[in-house]
């Protein structure tokens, strides 16, 4: 199966409101795919539809080759956006329970639960009741509960929210481990740095519409590259070149550094060569690739702000 998740023209309306508007994308097997979008973009609704918790108003969804997630539920791991645990159950019991609901025999479920807790640094809490765990620990327990049955496809809704930087690191490690086993991961977030570090692909939706679907490189190339320069006469020599579409002080706050935005597809090497030819003494020449954060703001910025104001 080449694409564990495939959405075709999926629409979900609540009365007049189109929460998800004609979204199509697919996630190739064995990849980690970031599902990005501002708050209220429709990420959770999409995920719930993928899992057959909600039904799309129109369009079709295929998950692991079937339209009904429940038919393949034993092969799916799911961490919902709002996370909760039975307060009175122990960490081990709850992980084992969810694994058992996914068809794992009870003795194996308990062993796996203990192993997972040990591996991700919760070994000493395995017999603690969930109400005694901190929020971060609870969240880790939940993630472990969603993967304890060794699923082929893992869907994580906002796995990083509420975690401190150390635990965010652990979460990234969990996701990398899952991918290392050849599994497919779809996770939603609005923190771009995570996506940037662990994703191969990203899907961006905004106000219910798909605005981007492709590799992280493709996403970066959406924004022009920039070159930061400093040196005597650098302004005269470079600003008026045809590939430079904009110039101004550096966005990283260094007043004496000039930042030049290049037109799409322009090669920064040309600027370097021109500077040499014109005899400019360069002290700084940095090529800055746009980061995912900028791409994200570029893709959803205006509309998201409008939506927020509305």
């Amino acid at each position, binding site marked *: 199966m080449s694409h564990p998740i495939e959405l075709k023209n999926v629409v979900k309306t609540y009365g007049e409101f189109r929460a998800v508007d004609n979204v199509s994308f697919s996630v190739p097997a064995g990849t980690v795919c970031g599902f990005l979008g501002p708050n209220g973009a429709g990420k959770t609704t999409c995920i*719930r539809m993928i899992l057959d918790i909600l039904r799309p108003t129109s369009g079709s969804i295929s998950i692991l080759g079937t339209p009904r997630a429940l038919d393949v539920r034993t092969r799916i791991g799911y*961490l919902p956006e709002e996370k909760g*645990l039975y307060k009175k159950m122990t960490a081990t019991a709850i992980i084992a329970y969810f694994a058992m609901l996914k068809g794992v025999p009870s003795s194996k479920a308990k062993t796996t639960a203990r192993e997972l807790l040990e591996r991700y640094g919760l070994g000493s809490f395995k017999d603690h009741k969930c109400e005694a765990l901190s929020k971060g620990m609870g969240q880790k327990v939940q993630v472990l509960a969603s993967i304890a049955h060794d699923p082929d496809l893992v869907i994580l809704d906002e796995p990083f929210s509420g975690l401190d930087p150390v635990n965010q690191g652990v979460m990234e490690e969990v996701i990398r481990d899952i991918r290392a086993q050849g599994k497919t991961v779809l996770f939603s977030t609005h923190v771009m740095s995570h996506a940037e570090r662990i994703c191969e692909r990203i899907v961006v939706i905004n106000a219910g519409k798909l605005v981007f679907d492709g590799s992280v490189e493709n996403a970066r190339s959406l924004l022009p590259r920039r070159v930061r320069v400093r040196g005597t006469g650098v302004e005269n020599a470079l600003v008026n070149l045809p590939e430079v579409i904009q110039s101004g002080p550096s966005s990283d706050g260094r007043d004496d550094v000039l930042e030049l935005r290049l037109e799409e597809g322009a090669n920064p090497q040309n600027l370097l060569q021109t500077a040499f030819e014109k005899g400019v003494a360069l002290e700084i020449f940095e090529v800055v690739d746009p980061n995912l954060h900028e791409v994200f703001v570029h893709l959803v910025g205006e509309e998201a702000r409008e939506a927020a104001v509305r």
Partner: protein
Amino acid sequence: MMQIYRVAIREYLENVKTKGFWIGIFIFPVLIWMMIEIPKFLEEKGIPTRHVVIIDRSDGLGEIARERITLLNRKKVLTALQTHIAEATASQREEMMKDQNIDIGELLDQLEQGLDQLQRSDVEINPFDPTKLVEMGDLVPEEMLLNDGQWNILKKMVLNQLPEDAPPFEEPTPRFQEVALPPDISMSQTDQQIEEQLKGYLRGDQPYSTENGDVQLFAMVTIPARALEPGEDVRFWSSNLADTDLLDAILGALTEEAREREYARQGIESEAVAEIASLKVRSVNFDPNKSEGEEKVGIRDKIRQYAPIGFVYMLWVAIFSIAQMLLNNTIEEKSNRIIEVLLSSVTTNELLLGKVLGVAAVGVTMQIAWIGSLISILHLKAGPSATWVADIIAAVITPELLVGFVFYFIAGYFFYAFLFAGIGSICNTIKEAQNFMSPLMLLMMVPLATMTFIPSEPNGTIATTLSWIPPWTPFVMMNRMAANPPAVEVYGTALVLLVSVIFVFWASAKVFRIGVLRTGQPPKLFELLGWLKSERP
């Protein structure tokens, strides 16, 4: 199936681990034990002898009052004697019951007939206490009790019934005891003056000195000179308004005396009056539902009519005890957002069924524990009486009744369980749930309120109407089962109930499906109806 089972197992184990469950399990036997022990303790400790002052201004009416006191005291002795003998002969009686294979129903019928022949319709049968089916004091004629010589012979005769190894009988303290006026008060003072001076004693402000030491004065009875004439009242002073036994006895005796005197004045023979008064038209009751030749209605049938009350109570308590659990659990899952993970693993129907079955298992465990502790306490405490009561109940409960009870119990249970789970799924907090619960609780009060009068008119209009309303069908039909309601109603209401259980399950599953993913305010009623009509979300 596996998912339902696993959800149910978790639900069961989690509930069984709670403190509430164990408190529920243990509070019941403790209550039962207290219900048995406390009256016993009070009886042993005894209501203390009540001390009475009698101011008699009449021509001998005071003597009549004193006779009554003697009568009450001797009846108390007889009751104590009866209990003592019953306890001493308990094992013998049990053996006899076993050996002779006595049909308890038959025995009760014979007893009733015997009393009927003696024309003692004033004697009541208590079928649930084999040691005291009738009070001995009710059977012995008053003249025999009032005559000291006969009384002593009677006592001796009864005591002779005791087996030789039996512990000696200790006579209980008298119920009432007359005391003389204090030395500083004399009968020559007016009634008002005496009453005024005695008030303090009656209020309990000061102890009343008698030859047997200080006591608490219970009452003062003033019998005026012409007490039997119209316009003259017996004056009764007491701080205790609840215990009217003494006053009732005295007034009853004086009324009788007044009548006797009036008969004499008008020249009517009092024997003739007594004979006339004892005339009584009697009836034999038949029930057309019973088989040919056995239509006669006996005491058994009367017990049968009331036996279902126990089952109605059981169902009610069962539903009541699971309601909170189902609500709490569903709300916990919902407010903790666990539900979403669950719904990615199990279908709504599986989850709902699993929860209800798991909680049902908790309820059944609790009930079995209760019944078990009830039986063992009764065996320990009440001894053979418990067997007797069990035998009576077994004698009156037919297989059809039992099948009916099981059916109504299960159907009623699921009806309410699905309802509660559905409500839990649309609420985020217990507080929100309370708003929905109050009308439901009112709904559930109806069977409790009607429970006592339905047996007296089991096929009346109210009973029939209530039977057709699904939330009440299980209770009301259980109540009516013993009265052989028409088959149309039995099968009709059962069908309606089954259909409603399925409907409630379907509706709850639907509401559950939408409700559990919803946050914020619980939906309005119209919105809920919309959910029912809607396809899946």
